């Protein structure tokens, strides 16, 4: 299973990559939204793990771009963000994310959720 991780904070990006690779996924990690979208169009991942606040293209814009791309219809999006207000969660789901996790987060829970959203996306 292929995962694209879009996270601008190096330590978090590397930790997520390590955890997902340890769980057996093929991971492509990028530091901004634009690079993540380019990579997603190239590798057609099962799941994209997206940080909200990123340079160039933020997580919401990335999610909207993924939803508008016919080649990525089978890709699930998991938003990982420090934004925890009710309206932020609503905005995230309105943009088309499949799941939403708030930082500080548990990397183990993230792996479980990635597996769950990927499984749901496959059965769509």
């Amino acid at each position: 299973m292929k995962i694209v991780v879009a996270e601008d904070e190096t330590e978090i990006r590397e930790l997520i990559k390590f955890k997902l690779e340890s769980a057996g996924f093929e991971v492509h990690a990028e530091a901004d939204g634009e690079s993540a979208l380019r990579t997603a169009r190239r590798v057609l991942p099962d799941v994209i793990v997206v940080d909200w606040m990123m340079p160039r293209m933020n997580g919401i814009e990335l999610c909207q771009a993924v939803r508008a791309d016919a080649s990525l219809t089978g890709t699930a999006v998991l938003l990982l963000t420090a934004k925890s207000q009710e309206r932020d969660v609503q905005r995230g789901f309105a943009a088309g994310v499949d799941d939403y996790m708030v930082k500080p987060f548990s990397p183990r829970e993230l792996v479980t959720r990635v597996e769950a959203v990927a499984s749901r996306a496959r059965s769509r």
Partner: protein
Amino acid sequence: MILSPTLITDAGVVMLVVLVVLGFATTVSKTFRARHDHRALLRVRKLRPFVLAAMEHPADNVATLSQLPRKERDAFVALARGLLPHLRGVDRERLVQILETTRLIDAALRQTHSRSPIRRARAAELLGLAGVARSQPELVRLLRDRDRDVRRTAARALGIVGDPRSVRALLDSLDGPRAVPVNAVTMAILRIGAPATTELRSLLLHGPPATRAVAAELLGLIGSTGAVPGLVGVLESDAGIELHIRAARALGRIGAPQATAALAACLAPDQPAPLRAVTARALGDIGGVRALSVLLTTTRSPEHVVASNAARALVTVGGEGITMLRHAATQPGRAGAYAREALSVAGLDAVELDPRGVA
């Protein structure tokens, strides 16, 4: 005095030499700093796989991390500082455990005594991020550090450590020549949360005036129902307007119906306008039948902010409050104008002025 051409030329040459030397020194310093940062980055990159592996399988990897040279240990701490704020759960616990096992927490405790303010601040930050309970006395000491950033970092760290015994020291740190900024102190106590309320309630009653005021505000923000009798007592005492305002606001935030009578008394016309303005909002937050009539009366107050707040408070109460406002809005005069304004601001139906009431 006339300066000779030779003297002017010599001065120019000296200036030029000074400028060249300064420029050279700046370039060397920048290059040195850039190389230092680059090497630090490389050390973090090299170390990262070991740390992540240790978080996954501590038994196999901690021994390697325990024997790191000093610069690599600094890189490990930098890496931990980058990870800890974003983590919870087992991985966070393991990272803290690794920091303990490799004695980096002990090193941070020692570095709170360092002569370098940067080292003291970094040590306080790490102890806070790792939530090290035994660091509480050292962090309390750093609240009076000679460096402002160290004091602020210590306050934030105490909030994360979460020991309610820090509350008094945090509030004390608001005063004096080495004061901690009030937002750092309040954020730290709010982070401690409900366990802080026992100390806050005691300080509300027995602290110095400024501390009592901040304690009242914090009790309201935490939503401490147990503080209601104390806050009502403050309202009914001659504690001064500053404390009365904070207590009234706190009671509104807590939403304490048993405070309605004491708050209503604060809306008497002889009370200061700033207190009446805050009290009106507080009564709106609490709601209830007893608040309605007193708020409606207050919409006729001669002070703009008091009358406006009372009308908006009736909107906050909702139901009967809005019915009362709708009726008042049909009437001429100031109260009617404030009622119409409040309904309009709330996006409720526009109300026409009753032509029968216009003289």
